[in-house]
């Protein structure tokens, strides 16, 4: 029982972190029907941005309540910067091109970013230790323990997802996003600029990925240039599982994936070496019976 409860908690924490990435996939897809495979790398560069600040800028004895917000800001800034450059330089010139062109471009951008960080970031050819923050402490509920970093992830991710949901439902930009997702031509005739909506979508997705990157770093205490690819694949799967284009679906899908990976690693033959497999088995099963995902609807982003 204790092991089961512990694995459920571990799975939920992983799900929360994946969810913050999945929101970016689902939103961009909702607006421009592009699977932005480089979104995982937006998350990865955020982690390195925070690492850079902590390792090279902040003093050694800085307190966590200063360091953590500062690292979040750095990660969000780097993630947004990269996402904006990517949208401007790689995707916008391809508006109107064949659907495959931006998809292949996304894969190219993904590889490019991984290699650039690996080659130019000091020591990034090997995994880097992420600053440890209040990791010694943990919350104990009966036999189950949760690191404070995990508690933080479990609190922050759903909170940000809910804020995003409210924002999309009840703001000028949110309405513009939904209108553009449903009918970009008519939205344009209403005075909505598709370029600005697209850019804003990339910015919001990148901001969430940046926060996710810091939470990921302090929880697993180690980053490398491949974390974007690995978690990006899970996040993309979560977005598809939940119904791509749906904000709530992305979070739901992410928690499912976290749980399946964690529980399969514990209980299913093959253990943690095969836990990836069961995530994709789940995806295939769901898509067989419900191709639009849990909460997916045909008309695009409806949170």
């Amino acid at each position, binding site marked *: 029982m204790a092991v089961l409860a512990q694995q459920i908690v571990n799975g939920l924490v992983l799900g929360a972190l994946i969810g913050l990435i999945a929101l970016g996939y689902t939103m961009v897809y909702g607006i421009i029907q592009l699977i932005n495979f480089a979104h995982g790398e937006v998350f990865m560069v955020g982690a390195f941005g925070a690492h850079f600040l902590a390792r090279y800028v902040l003093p050694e004895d800085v307190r966590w309540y200063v360091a953590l917000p500062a690292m979040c800001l750095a990660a969000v800034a780097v993630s947004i910067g990269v996402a904006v450059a990517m949208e401007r330089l790689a995707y916008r010139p391809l508006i109107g091109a064949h659907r495959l062109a931006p998809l292949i471009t996304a894969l190219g951008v993904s590889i490019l970013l991984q290699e650039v960080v690996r080659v130019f970031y000091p020591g990034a050819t090997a995994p880097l230790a992420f600053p440890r923050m209040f990791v010694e402490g943990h919350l104990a509920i009966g036999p189950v323990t949760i690191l404070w970093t995990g508690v933080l992830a479990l609190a922050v991710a759903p909170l940000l997802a809910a804020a995003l949901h409210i*924002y999309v439902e009840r703001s000028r*930009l949110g309405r513009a996003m*939904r*209108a553009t997702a449903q*009918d970009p031509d*008519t939205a344009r*005739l209403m*005075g*909505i600029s598709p370029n600005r909506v697209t850019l804003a979508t990339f910015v919001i997705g990148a901001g969430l990925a940046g926060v996710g990157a810091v939470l990921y770093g302090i929880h697993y205490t180690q980053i490398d240039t491949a974390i974007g690819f690995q978690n990006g694949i899970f996040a993309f799967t979560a977005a598809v599982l939940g119904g791509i284009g749906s904000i709530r679906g992305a979070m739901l899908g992410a928690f499912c994936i976290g749980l399946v990976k964690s529980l399969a690693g514990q209980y299913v033959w093959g253990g943690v070496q095969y836990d990836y497999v069961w995530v994709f088995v789940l995806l295939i099963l769901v898509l067989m019976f419900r191709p639009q995902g849990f909460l997916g609807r045909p*008309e695009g982003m409806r949170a």
Partner: protein
Amino acid sequence: MTLTAERVSMTFGGLVALDDVTLAVPGNRITGLIGPNGAGKTTLFNCLTGLYAPTSGRILLDGRPLAADPAQAMRGGVARTFQNIRLFPGMSALDNVLVGRHTRIKQGLLAALLHGPGFRKSEAAATERARAELEFVGLGPEGHMPARSLAYGDQRRLEIARALAGDPAVLMLDEPTAGMNGTETADISALITAIRDRGIAVVVIEHDTKFIFSLCDHVYVLVRGRMLVDGPPATVRTDPRVIEAYLGATECSK
């Protein structure tokens, strides 16, 4: 405000869709635009709403040139509805109207994310205005319904409410009664008159000449890309050129 087309011509390849067309739409008036199929009505409409840039000639709003960009035309005060309804089907009626108000809402991204008082005030004001427009077109209780589940006639009204929410000086209606029965058409007539009484210039394209002659203050007749005649309905409907070119003898005798 006055919207004018000054000697507008429009050619598509070798095809002349509009040939030296001049028209003026003053505020406080309902202006009708009629003509047989293929006369160039919709082309002229698209020029007046900034969708097309005329090959020659100018579109002026209160003497200033109107940009050939629908978003800017909208900001300038020219709103429209569509011949084929173009609502956002999955969004609520209220949200559709709020999208129509998009260009009039000022909200910073940061203020919105922080849900500050300025943001809440701007949302509340926009929502109140949108509800008032729904009320105005007779859809007060339907605000929460997805646009796609409204009845056909109500969808046309919703498009009008959405257009009105953008504070237009000129409202362009492209066949507002297409596919409607007699009662619904009479309701739309009353609605259009009420819009004019708000001081908004209304332009209506229609095939239904009876509807146009009973509703409009001034009627333009477009035939094969040329402006054949214009004037008050009483004059236009008895003009022999109009009867010959467009109405036909039987229609006139009614």
